[in-house]
């Protein structure tokens, strides 16, 4: 009997340790999801020219370009503004955080859009 318990103890401890790890990871995922939910507004604010005036200079060009395209990738915005794709990606994400744009992922491509 004690031999059987000894044989089971090791895999059981491993299972408990794995479950503990999974639990910690779930906590992290849960925290990250709720943080993102706070950062991404449910509804995007319509952006007009007076709202554009209140944006920082570097975001104005991106916002106006996205308004013209209505829905675009960072690449498409970049080809209009002449600034780098990575820079436009950063600015587009800032517009998302400010609530003026939303983003959606289709496969590997991220599309940004303004309110209709």
């Amino acid at each position, binding site marked *: 009997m004690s031999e059987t318990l000894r044989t089971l103890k090791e895999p059981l401890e491993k299972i408990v340790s794995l479950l503990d790890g999974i639990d910690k990871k779930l906590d992290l995922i849960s925290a990250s999801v709720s943080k993102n939910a706070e950062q991404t507004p449910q509804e995007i604010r319509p952006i007009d020219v007076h709202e554009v*005036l209140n944006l920082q200079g570097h975001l104005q060009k991106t916002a*106006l370009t996205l*308004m013209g395209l209505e829905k675009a990738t960072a690449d498409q915005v970049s080809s209009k503004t002449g600034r780098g794709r990575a820079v436009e990606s950063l600015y587009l994400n800032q517009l998302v955080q400010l609530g003026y744009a939303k983003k959606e992922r289709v496969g590997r491509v991220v599309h940004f859009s303004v309110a209709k």
Partner: protein
Amino acid sequence: MSRAITVHSHKGGTGKTLIAANLAAIYAKNGRSVCLLDFDLRAPSQHILFKTTPKYWLNDFLEGICDIKSAITDLSEKYGSKGRFFVGFANPSSKAIREMMIKDRRWEMEALKRMIKAKDTLYSDSKVDYLIFDTSPGIYYSSINAIACSDAVLLVMKMDEFDIEGTEELISGIYDALGRKKTGIIVNRIISKQQGTLTEDEAKMIKELESTFARPIIAMIPCFCDIQLTGGKAIYALKNPEHSFIEILEEVSQELEQL
């Protein structure tokens, strides 16, 4: 490279309409492809200067009734210009003006989107080199939308305290906020001791305003009585290109390339 220029002012009666129309005519005469848009939707005037009644007005384009190409009229043949000369007119009927005045924020947002797209169409399909907006004075949606679409602003003012203070506020409140929009100032209708020209002292005094505005004064235009007397019935760049008013605007057209 194509450029969009807004002609704007703090107050009315500074001469924006004549300057915008003649500047457009100068570019077209010199072989550039131009599109002049009457964005003074509250007090349209360009249809009077060009004596044209189009099938579609700019109002129709902004409402989504027609596209931008249907809302502009090609006047190249009428005026025998070397470059293409398109003009988009605003509807002068009181009903249309009233309708434009009660538009809400969402409508203005859609109007701005339409205009940004239309700019691309005019540049790529109609091969426009210069897009010129003639706007309403002050901070109205249509004017600020035009400024947001433009690469540079020509700010037209008169030499009075109302205009100097108002212009200063426009620069700090709007142009600075819009990514330090490239701006050139035209001081127009200057009453001088010497009719038709400026004394050295007068020119120096006006030039000193540059430090107040922190923007270049790219032209000082004396008050030409003959232009006032015609009451906006002629486009001098086409009818009387030798006139001093046009000579000054020729220089402005070149200065704009540097802005």
